[in-house]
């Protein structure tokens, strides 16, 4: 601009490019862009940046969402392919996001707007005993082949159906690997949806549960398997 000083700030130009600058002020800036070289060059930059948004429309992204459940605050995360994490362990949102950032360094980890609402809805229905199976795409790309076999076999267990660690080991063709099966399930990134709570020990005891044994009992109780529980120690009392 020649003569007078330009009064437009960086934010004004950015607002114009984003389509946020409505009304007279936006119109003034439109005309101003023909006059003022610094503003025009800024606008060019922001237009170029705007076009590069396409890089994010296609590529990897991790969306996360948190909501309250009878188990406390539940946090879920998904890639474009499917759910990658479900946990209610007592960590805060920042720690959850930090863990995802560490795991997915190149993918922006962003808070979800609507994308994961159907997943939340299905989990709510499950906790309300109105749903017995999940219809949610899963993304198991981050796990080892062995763990994927174990998780896939476990995912085949229906509502209220239980199997032993040895059963799962047999199903994946590794009959002597029941301990390794237990370890793999202990690192199940998708609790509940991949029902590792339905896998118990051969001696009839429930076995461990990463989220805490009381949650395993509560889930089995929710699924109508109070017969497996120790009568003296009531579960969390979901139902």
């Amino acid at each position, binding site marked *: 601009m020649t003569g007078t000083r330009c009064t437009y700030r*960086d*934010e004004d130009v*950015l*607002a114009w490019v*984003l*389509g*946020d600058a409505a009304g007279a002020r*936006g*119109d003034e800036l*439109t*005309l101003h*862009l*023909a*006059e003022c070289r610094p503003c*025009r060059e800024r*606008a*060019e*930059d*922001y*237009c*170029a*940046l*705007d*076009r*590069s*948004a*396409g*890089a*994010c*429309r*296609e*590529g*990897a*992204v991790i969306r996360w969402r948190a909501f309250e459940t009878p188990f406390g605050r539940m946090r879920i995360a998904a890639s474009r392919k499917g759910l990658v994490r479900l946990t209610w362990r007592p960590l805060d949102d*920042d720690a959850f*996001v930090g863990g995802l*950032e560490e795991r*997915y*360094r*190149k*993918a*922006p*980890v*962003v*808070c979800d*707007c609507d994308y994961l609402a159907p997943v939340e809805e299905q989990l709510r229905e499950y906790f309300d005993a109105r749903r017995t199976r999940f219809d949610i795409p899963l993304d198991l790309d981050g796990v080892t082949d062995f763990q994927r076999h174990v998780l896939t076999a476990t995912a085949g267990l229906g509502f209220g159906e239980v199997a032993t660690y040895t059963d799962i080991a047999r199903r994946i063709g590794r009959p002597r690997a029941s301990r390794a099966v237990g370890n793999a399930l202990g690192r199940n990134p998708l609790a509940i949806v991949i029902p590792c709570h339905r896998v118990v020990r051969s001696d009839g005891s429930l076995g461990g549960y990463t989220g805490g044994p009381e949650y395993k009992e509560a889930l089995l109780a929710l699924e109508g398997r109070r017969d497996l529980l120790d009568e003296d120690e009531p579960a969390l009392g979901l139902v």
Partner: protein
Amino acid sequence: MESATLTEYRSAPQPIDVPVDDWASRYGDELERHVTRMLRSVDEARDVVQELWVTALRVPPDWGEGSNIRAWLYRVATRRALDVLSARRRHDGALETRSRELEPERPVRPDAAFRGLSREGADLVRTRVAALPSRQRDAVWLRWIEGVDYETIAQRLDCSQDAARANVYQGLKRLRRELAGLWKEEDLR
């Protein structure tokens, strides 16, 4: 979408008949002058304005009472002129096109193939977005990538609309700084 269409039908004497000729005779000259001032080229300015009429036919603005058609035309023409400048300055704008008002019928210059970003370029953009502070990242993603309005973003992030907007702007300003070198590099490919 439906209501917008209904508005158009109500306000337009004949729904299909976009009065582009009328606009061209009323505003054509001043738009060309405006764009020429930006591009310093009468021919290119004429191209931009011609293209504007095509755009207006394909994606007609709402020209009902109270709508400022002149402002709309200026805005779209300016946006396109900036794209031309950008392509010129960056040699052969090796960037994916993305524009809210219009989809280019053809590259801004016949020889400027608007390729997508290279794989490395796209990775870099994502990595820089991923490295934004989380509030800015959330806000930038929702506004810039998903086109969510500020009211919804504010609800989602549990903050005021002003704060949501400030986070979007801070994030994009930072990206502009951090990615400034990218476009030049992409041009050299």
